């Protein structure tokens, strides 16, 4: 069993680090690197949303944390001259701290109420970014320097992106690495004691509280981890785009994060990754359909929901298939 999983993991690594770059250089579609980088980063954010789904909360507020993370990293890089690689975890931590403060009261809400408050949170983040002086209002912050080099004891681990001959490829590798680490962490969480406790929250919060599970602490913890993911995804995004505006992450992005989870399947750790790939990449490919792009995209989305209401990965569910 373990061997099979390891084999799958190695196959995945080969695909993303060898086959995909080979394919792209063979076809010459270099823009795919940018698309796939976006997919990888969005799926990091979606992983966070998925974790809040796992404790039984619908989170439509990931855009807020992605925006906050992006701004924290950008402001640290441009105004305090901190290395980007240090701001990445700092942005995540900042989001986690904010999410504890916000999450403590609002995580008492459930179902649609929580969903709607988080939706409002995205708007609050956008409007705050517009109103604060440090974020430079609607003009945003542009021409952010590319990440510098990261070295420990003089040993270069990551070269400066400005010196790379193909920064797109560098960003792709970085984003995919980040995605892999995120999903390994997520997989580890789900298969740990913490994961089991989260599952009990999803099923029946009162019952698990009655047998001594500290539900208030658990849900804030899960929400903080979720926001951490959102923050680092946003920070990386701002660095790749080399700019950030209050409209970089809006309500539509928050909704999309949620849709990625739904489409992939809420019951599967790797659901959000697949969902992001299908929806984002599919949208990109459909651009050849021009004015019918949105029509086809939404039509396929509705159809998928009708055929597979429990997500694409529910195809793997053998019990369901035999019934």
């Amino acid at each position: 069993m373990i061997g099979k999983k390891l084999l799958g993991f190695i196959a995945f690594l080969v695909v993303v680090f060898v086959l995909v770059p080979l394919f792209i250089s063979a076809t010459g579609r270099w823009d795919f690197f940018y698309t796939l980088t976006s997919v990888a980063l969005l799926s990091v954010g979606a992983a966070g949303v998925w974790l809040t789904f796992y404790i039984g909360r619908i989170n439509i507020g990931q855009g807020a944390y992605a925006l906050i993370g992006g701004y924290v990293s950008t402001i640290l890089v441009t105004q305090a001259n901190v290395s980007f690689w240090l701001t990445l975890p700092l942005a995540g931590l900042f989001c986690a701290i904010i999410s504890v403060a916000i999450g403590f009261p609002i995580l008492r809400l459930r179902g649609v109420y929580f969903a709607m408050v988080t939706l409002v949170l995205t708007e609050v983040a956008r409007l705050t970014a517009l109103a604060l002086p440090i974020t430079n209002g609607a003009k945003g912050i542009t021409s952010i320097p590319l990440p510098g080099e990261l070295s420990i004891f003089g040993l270069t681990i990551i070269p400066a992106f400005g010196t790379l001959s193909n920064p797109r490829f560098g960003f792709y590798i970085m984003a995919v690495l980040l995605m892999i680490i995120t999903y390994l962490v997520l997989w580890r969480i789900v298969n740990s004691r913490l994961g089991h406790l989260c599952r009990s929250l999803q099923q029946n919060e009162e019952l698990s509280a009655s047998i001594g599970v500290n539900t208030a602490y658990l849900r804030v913890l899960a929400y903080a981890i979720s926001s951490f993911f959102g923050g680092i995804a946003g920070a990386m995004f701002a660095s790749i785009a080399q700019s950030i505006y209050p409209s970089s992450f809006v309500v539509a992005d928050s909704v999309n994060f949620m849709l990625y989870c739904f489409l992939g399947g809420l019951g599967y750790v790797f659901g959000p990754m697949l969902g992001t790939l299908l929806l984002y990449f599919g949208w990109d490919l459909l651009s050849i359909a021009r004015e019918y792009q949105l029509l086809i995209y939404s039509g396929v989305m509705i159809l998928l929901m009708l055929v597979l209401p429990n997500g694409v990965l529910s195809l793997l569910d053998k019990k369901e298939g035999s019934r």
Partner: protein
Amino acid sequence: MEQIIANGLYLGAQYALIALGLTLIFSLMNVLNFAHGQMYVFGGFVTYTVVVQLGLPFIVGLFASAIVLAVMGAAIEKFLFAPVVRRSKRDESTMLLAAGIAFFLDAVILLFFGEKQRGVPKIVNGVLNLDMRIIMPYDRILIGVLAILLIVAFIAFMHYSRTGRAMRALAQDKVAAQLMGVNVSRYSMIGFALGAMLAGLVGGLLVTITGVNLGMGGPTSVKAFLMIMIGGAGVISGAIAGGFILGMMESVGLTVLSAYGDITYLVIFASLMVFLAVRPQGLMGKPWG
């Protein structure tokens, strides 16, 4: 001051009507209809087509909007929501469907009506001027009164008709209503059609004043969510209260806070989050909805 209150009441009447449709759908099926704003925009475009392009009177356009949207709502419920609700493991899956429908309607509006801002010529001319204290065009007053009449008619319908009673029973307790012989699938469909119809009617009313465009759908949905959160999701009186409260807050905020820049909505959102932290179920909602 009087002007602010008059503006607030006028805004509130429209908002309440939008929120009513959303809350009706939510109370019956536990579905958060993301496509509500798009339905509203669609209703506006139907009225525009009938009135401006076909040259028919405004009232015909309004009826056309109501009928088109009601049929659309019924079809969406019967062919999309009902099968998904039946087969999915978690209630929330309907959210993906609702968001998909919202995108789909956006695409349809784009293809049929284009992306231009569309409006209908004023139905009545003239401005009411009370001593320079309240200044309000007659057409806004007419639309506001019509909206309030529609709200009253809707409440009366829910309270005194057989269909309305059945829907209220369903909202209270689905199983009990079913045991009493209420046909759940039929009344869910009627409820969805009614909710969509209300959205279409508001669209038809507002196209005479503000006009409609493609981009209005999403923000309208968010506003409607706000209203039903203030009042409590799934409660009719709550939706009306929420609509009027939001209308008032917007009207007061735009006047009082204008000195500090464009922060009205930031203040509204922030106070809403504090309010919900204290009272999660809204003003009149049931705990945990």
